[in-house]
Structure formats: structure tokens, C-alpha cells
């Protein structure tokens, strides 16, 4: 049963309607005057010059996480492409040279034109290999092919763009924790 | 300069407007769709308004546009637009009786033209005519001292009032069907209750929100 919202009882002056019109006019004129005299009051972002501040947990373009030796963390398990409702992830697996790891992606493509940015792939990934925290929310391209991002492009990110608290990113090549992580990696204690 | 110009332009304007009026009248006779006819008739009205202005009757010229073109024809066009959804294509323009019907006006026109031609000398312009401006007409119409037309004016008003009432009575489906959706249903009018109330009104579903908007009912069920 829908909730019944009682209509507010109008007073006599509200019924006359004209007084309320003038109140509304005063409000809008106040806004107009404020924006005219003080341009800083305008809430518009001067877009191309000023970029919007996108939070880190905004679901933006994907990236593939990297191991300390710059190989992708992805093990080509197809969990993400199975979870994907838009079926925009195309993975081709191949055998991994590392005997600890069974498979690795030979091809990892995401068609951003199909992607609905739901984040299910990130949820589904068992080894934190795919993330959507690149802050690249505004995607532009000249043709459809530009929107199909491949493995190289997905892995082309800089640890310096990510906060120190993001340990996983800092362990990738170039990150603050990379040297230490590489040692662990070589000694086999890395996980 | 202006009077001389007027002497030349006056007849030109007259023939212009006369030609336009005749042309539009012919178009009214021949055109297929009522809206085309209405536009042709508006053309007649506008050119007649020009003629009235030429014939020293500026007030009637304005009134012709205001009342005829602006109100009556507007109403006609409006009703045509509401009613004629695909109805007009089924009606032939003329039928066999039309030819007989055409004979009468032709006869009449011939008769009138003949009569006017005969009494040509009787109809000449009189020098002492009055220019019927707004003030002149109003002064004559409401001359209560005698010779005024104010009583007739009142009767005209009464007839218009009666016409309004008659039109409302005729066009309303039935006088009870007042679909008052503009009243706030703020008490306890739940959806079911309201639907029952609407269903109680005969034909409310076909009439829609308001009966005054002349919504055409579906064919089935109305006969």
C-alpha cells in the first residue's frame, strides 16, 4: 500500500497565489543578482580548463594490476568475463612460464562501448587483478576501435598516480614498495 | 501628395481585394479539406476587411478581423481540427444533386447582375455620406435620445448569451459528467475508491479528463 501524503492545507494568502508568486520571484532574483555580481557563486565547472575531481572509488576505466616483475596479476580464470553482464571482456588464455601459476592472459581486451561500468568484474576477480580506480571517467575517441582497450593499455599506469596506502599498486614496478616486493617475489615469500 | 495617390491607389486596392475575395470564394467552393476551405474563407474575410476600410468603415474593418477572422473562424478551425480525424476523406466533394444545387446560385447571380445593370443609374456614390469611425458608430448606436440602436444591441447580447448556453448544453455529453480532476483528492480517496467514482460516471473513460475538450468517442458502443 502506497503511503498517502496529505496535502498541506493552504492559508488564505497562499490560496490567493499572487503573494507566493512574488516570494518566488524574489528568490530567483536573489540568485540572479548573486551570480551576476559574484561569479564565484556559480556552481558550474569551467570544464575543459578545470577538470572535475573524481573520487578514487568512482568506477572509471579499468586497469590490470601488475606483479613486481611487471607481469599481469591476472591468471586468465575468466571469472570477470563470466560475471560481466555486458560481455565486454574478451580474454584469451595461454600457459604461464611460471610453474606456480597455471595460466596467464595472452589477450585481455575490454570494449568500453559495451561496458556498463557496473564493477562486477572487480568483485569477481579472485586475485585483485582488475580494478576500476583510474579516475579516467571521461572517455573520448575518434572511432570505435579506440574504445577497445587491450592488455598493454590496461597495464599502462604509473604507481605514482596512486596513494601510498594502495599497497598493491606500490608493489608494482616503479612503486614505493617495489624493490622490497621484488625481493620477496624472488625469494618466494611474496603473496 | 497623399490625396492624389489615394485616387490612384484606391481603385487598385479595390480590384486587388475584390479579386482576392472572389478567388478565395471560388477556392472555398472547390477545395477538398475543410481546413483548406476555412483558410480560403479567412482570405475572403481579410480582403473584405480591406474593402470595408476602403469604403469608409474602419471600425467594421477592424471588427471583421477581430470577430470573424479572429474568433468565429478560429472556432471553426478548432472544431475541424478536433473532429475530422480521417473523416473527411470518406465524403465525396460533390454528388449528383450538386449540379442542380449549382443552378440556383448561378440563376440568382444572373438575376442580381441583370437587376443591378438595369438600375445602374440608381446606385451612385453620394457626396454626403458619413465616414463611420468608431466614435460616429458608437454615438449613433447608443443615442438614447432617439434613433439609437441600443435596444437592438442589448438583444444582440442576449442572443449571444443564449447561443453560449445552447452551445454548452449541446456539446456537453451530459451535464452530470464533470470530470473535476482539478479538485485535490486529499481526504482518503484511495485509488480504488477513485476508480470506482470514475467508473460511476457514464462514459467517463471515453470522455477523458474534461468533457469540454470535445474528445471524439470511439465508434463502437456509442450507437
Amino acid at each position, binding site marked *: 500500500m502506497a503511503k498517502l501524503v496529505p496535502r498541506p492545507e493552504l492559508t488564505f494568502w497562499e490560496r490567493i497565489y499572487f503573494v507566493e508568486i512574488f516570494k518566488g520571484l524574489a528568490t530567483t532574483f536573489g540568485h540572479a543578482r548573486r551570480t551576476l555580481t559574484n561569479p564565484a557563486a556559480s556552481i558550474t565547472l569551467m570544464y575543459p580548463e578545470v577538470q572535475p575531481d573524481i573520487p578514487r572509488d568512482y568506477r572509471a576505466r579499468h586497469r590490470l594490476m601488475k606483479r613486481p616483475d611487471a607481469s599481469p596479476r591476472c591468471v586468465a580464470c575468466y571469472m570477470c568475463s563470466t560475471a560481466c553482464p555486458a560481455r565486454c571482456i574478451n580474454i584469451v588464455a595461454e600457459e604461464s612460464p611460471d610453474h606456480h601459476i597455471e595460466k596467464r592472459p595472452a589477450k585481455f581486451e575490454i570494449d568500453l562501448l559495451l561496458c556498463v561500468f557496473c564493477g562486477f568484474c572487480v568483485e569477481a576477480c579472485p586475485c585483485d587483478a582488475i580494478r576500476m580506480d583510474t579516475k579516467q571517467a571521461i572517455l573520448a575517441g575518434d572511432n570505435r576501435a579506440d574504445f577497445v582497450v587491450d592488455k598493454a593499455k590496461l597495464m599502462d599506469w604509473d604507481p605514482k598516480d596512486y596513494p601510498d596506502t594502495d599497497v598493491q599498486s606500490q608493489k608494482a614496478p616503479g612503486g614505493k614498495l617495489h624493490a622490497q616486493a621484488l625481493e620477496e617475489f624472488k625469494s618466494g615469500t611474496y603473496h | 501628395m497623399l490625396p492624389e495617390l489615394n485616387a490612384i491607389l484606391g481603385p487598385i486596392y479595390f480590384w486587388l481585394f475584390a479579386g482576392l475575395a472572389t478567388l478565395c470564394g471560388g477556392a*472555398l*467552393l472547390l477545395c477538398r479539406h475543410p481546413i483548406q476551405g476555412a483558410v480560403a474563407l479567412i482570405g*475572403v474575410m481579410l480582403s473584405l476587411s480591406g474593402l470595408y476600410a476602403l*469604403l469608409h468603415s474602419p471600425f467594421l474593418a477592424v471588427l*471583421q478581423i477581430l470577430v470573424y477572422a479572429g474568433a468565429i473562424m478560429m472556432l*471553426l478551425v478548432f472544431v475541424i481540427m478536433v473532429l475530422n480525424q480521417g473523416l473527411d476523406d470518406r465524403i465525396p*466533394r460533390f454528388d449528383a444533386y450538386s*449540379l442542380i444545387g449549382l443552378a440556383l446560385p448561378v440563376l*440568382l447571380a444572373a438575376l442580381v447582375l441583370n437587376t443591378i445593370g438595369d438600375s445602374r443609374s440608381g446606385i451612385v456614390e453620394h457626396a454626403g455620406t458619413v465616414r463611420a469611425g468608431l466614435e460616429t458608430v458608437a454615438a449613433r448606436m447608443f443615442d438614447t435620445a432617439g434613433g439609437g440602436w441600443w435596444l437592438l444591441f442589448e438583444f*444582440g447580447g442576449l442572443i449571444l448569451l443564449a447561443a453560449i448556453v445552447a452551445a454548452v448544453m449541446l456539446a456537453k455529453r451530459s451535464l452530470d459528467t464533470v470530470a473535476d480532476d482539478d479538485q485535490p483528492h486529499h481526504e482518503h480517496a484511495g485509488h480504488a475508491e477513485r476508480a470506482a467514482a470514475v467508473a460511476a460516471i457514464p462514459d467517463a473513460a471515453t470522455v477523458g479528463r474534461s468533457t469540454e475538450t470535445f474528445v471524439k468517442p470511439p465508434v463502437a458502443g456509442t450507437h
Partner: protein
Amino acid sequence: MSHLDPIHVQLLAAVLFALGLAVTLTRRNIFFLLMGVELMLNAVNLSFIGFARTVPGDASLTGHLSPLFIIAIAAAEACVGLAMVICIVRNRDSLDSDAYADMKE
């Protein structure tokens, strides 16, 4: 001012009246019937105003006043006529004047 021959005005009025009559008598669509009547009324108006120029002084005003009442009556006629058309179209679902011939039977 210009010198218009009142005869020409009367001729035009006669032509328009004949046209209006022809429309009313020949056309089958009910709207055309109404419009034909309007055209005839207009022709009469024109005739009145044309004749107003042939009589002297105060009497000529009569020619200018009569059309006022004709216009008022025409407005009333259009109003009631259109309401009747709406009423009948609702019942008959037709704009053909033949569909309105019930009174015959």
C-alpha cells in the same frame, strides 16, 4: 479620396453571395455548409456597406450599423452550429450531411 463605383461593390457582393449559396447547396461536408452560410452573411455585410455610400448623411450610418448585428448573429450562429455538429458527429461519426437526414423518416 478614391472614387469607387458602388456598382462594383454590389457586383462583388452578388458574386460572393452566389458563391456562398453554391457552397451551401453543393457541398456535402457539414463544415462547408456552415462556411457557405458565413460567406453569404459576409456578402450581405459588404452589400450594406456598399449601399451606405449611396445615401446621404445620417442614413448612411444605418448601412454601417446593420453589419454589426449581422456579425453578432453570425457569431451566435457559428457557436450553436458548431455545437450541433459536434453533437451529431458524436452520434453519427460522420461529417457527411446525408448522415444527418434522420428527420426525413
